[in-house]
């Protein structure tokens, strides 16, 4: 462990997590959120992107009482506590679903695909789910 402590913090990589799935229909959204929160504990440069149906993960007013599943939408609020501050939502995906930034549970940077392209190109590791 000591060796890791010594060598670990010097290597900071840029990690980007790309969320492309809607919540609840599959397990991808919840699993990716957990991975991001775990990874954030390792002091890496973390970005989170919500793209395609992934933008639906952040929709306000989720109420899962009747489907008997855990409502994990509030957990996105913990990203800020873990110093994950680079949170991007693709503009085109949001608009295609008739949603705006006001519909989302956390403050995000709404970014057009043209600009997201550049942010994505700067990453060392990109993990999509």
């Amino acid at each position, binding site marked *: 462990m000591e060796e890791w402590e010594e060598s670990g913090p010097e290597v900071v990589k840029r990690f980007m997590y790309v969320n492309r799935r*809607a919540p609840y229909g599959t397990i991808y959204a919840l699993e990716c959120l957990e991975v991001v929160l775990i990874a954030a504990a390792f002091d890496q440069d973390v970005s989170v992107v919500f793209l395609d149906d992934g933008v639906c993960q952040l929709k306000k007013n989720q*109420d899962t009482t009747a489907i008997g599943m855990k409502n994990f939408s509030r957990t996105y609020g913990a990203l800020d506590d873990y110093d994950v501050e680079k949170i991007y939502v693709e503009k085109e995906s949001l608009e295609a679903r008739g949603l705006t930034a006001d519909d989302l549970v956390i403050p995000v940077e709404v970014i057009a695909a043209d600009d997201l392209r550049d942010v994505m190109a700067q990453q060392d590791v990109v993990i999509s789910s």
Partner: protein
Amino acid sequence: MNSMLHLINKSPFERTALDSCLRVAKAGSSILLIEDGVYAALKNAAHAIKISTRMEDFSFYVLGPDVAARGLGDTPLIEGITVVDYEGFVDLVAEHEVTQSWL
């Protein structure tokens, strides 16, 4: 008895289940949107025209609990789609001779 109940549980943005169903299903059939299929019911979404232009051909339903789970309870849905609960789901299955799941 009505002919067929079609179940769509995939997002129309990600999969072609709804498109194929709308192409193949016989007029007079019923289509129930469940799970991620409920995103097809969003009135202000780009694809809303797929359903809104077929209202005369099909009876459309959407499962309320799945709408609420996804935070869409306060979001406008396409006019003419009937929201049903689990009991309504059971009634629809009982009212149709055949149920087809478009997995």
